[in-house]
């Protein structure tokens, strides 16, 4: 089970992901990130991973896919609050040098709480 909530902080959209991002949860998270990136041409998206208890290769694939999509559209995407286990995995596969990171403290305070979405685990 994965859930997420979205907040706007200045020019940035911050999506906080909670739960296990594994093969079961990846398709729904992918859809949500695509939707957020499709909101406008000037989206600047931060993915807050502090609550991501576990991320597997499919979860990494979703993050890679979102970064690719953002780059192709000339949008900004960054990760924040990466848990230690995920940080080690990113380093292991050489993705630590690929993903931009940002500190939440560098962003403006939240302006509004947008939505809270439960992402059901999708059956394979």
């Amino acid at each position: 089970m994965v859930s997420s909530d979205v907040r706007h902080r200045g020019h940035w959209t911050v999506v906080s992901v909670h739960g296990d991002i594994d093969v079961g949860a990846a398709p729904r998270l992918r859809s949500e990130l695509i939707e957020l990136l499709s909101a406008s041409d000037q989206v600047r998206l931060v993915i807050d991973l502090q609550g991501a208890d576990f991320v597997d290769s499919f979860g990494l694939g979703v993050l890679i896919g979102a970064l690719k999509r953002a780059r192709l559209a000339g949008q900004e995407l960054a990760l924040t609050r990466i848990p230690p286990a995920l940080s080690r995995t990113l380093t292991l596969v050489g993705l630590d040098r690929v993903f931009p990171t940002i500190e939440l403290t560098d962003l403006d305070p939240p302006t509004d709480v947008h939505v809270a979405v439960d992402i059901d685990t999708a059956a394979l």
Partner: protein
Amino acid sequence: MSVEAEPYATESAGGSAHGVSAGGSAHGVSAGGSAHGVSAGGSAHAVELRIPARTEFLAVARMVVVAAAALDPSFTEERLDNLRLAVSEACTNAIEAHATVGSHDQVRVRCDRDGGRIEVEVEDHGHGFDPSDLVALPEPDDPERLDFESGLGIMLMRSLTDRTEIESSPEGTLVRLVMYGIPGLDAAGNTT
């Protein structure tokens, strides 16, 4: 195939005297302690689990294997994190293998912990694959690196464990993951 498949172990009864058995449905999980009824040369510390080949049961497999390893204090949080991910990748591949052939069989997960070492076997009855066919990932600095949204699973298993063995045949695949609490040392302190 790079390795000929071993004959599969005779299936043991799911619920032993110490086991948990949850119904006989397609969604049942069964687990057994090895002192009763594991047939594949089990030690006194083995745990065997059968999960339905559905992704929502991955969390169960991760939890059981990591809990078994955590009984040994030599496994640090970092090593347990590595084991958790490696086991999950192996089970994901097994579940996908069953989905590909339309099998409703359960996936067998067996972990045997002994003297600072844990060995986890994940067995499926899919079509199998040739491990030598796996494509190497481009270097991180290669622009094509971002084209690899999938295919990381086996690379991760190999990187995260001390040893990953894959025996695959058209009848199925057995993945064996070996990890030591102290990287590269066995219980006697010998370099492995």
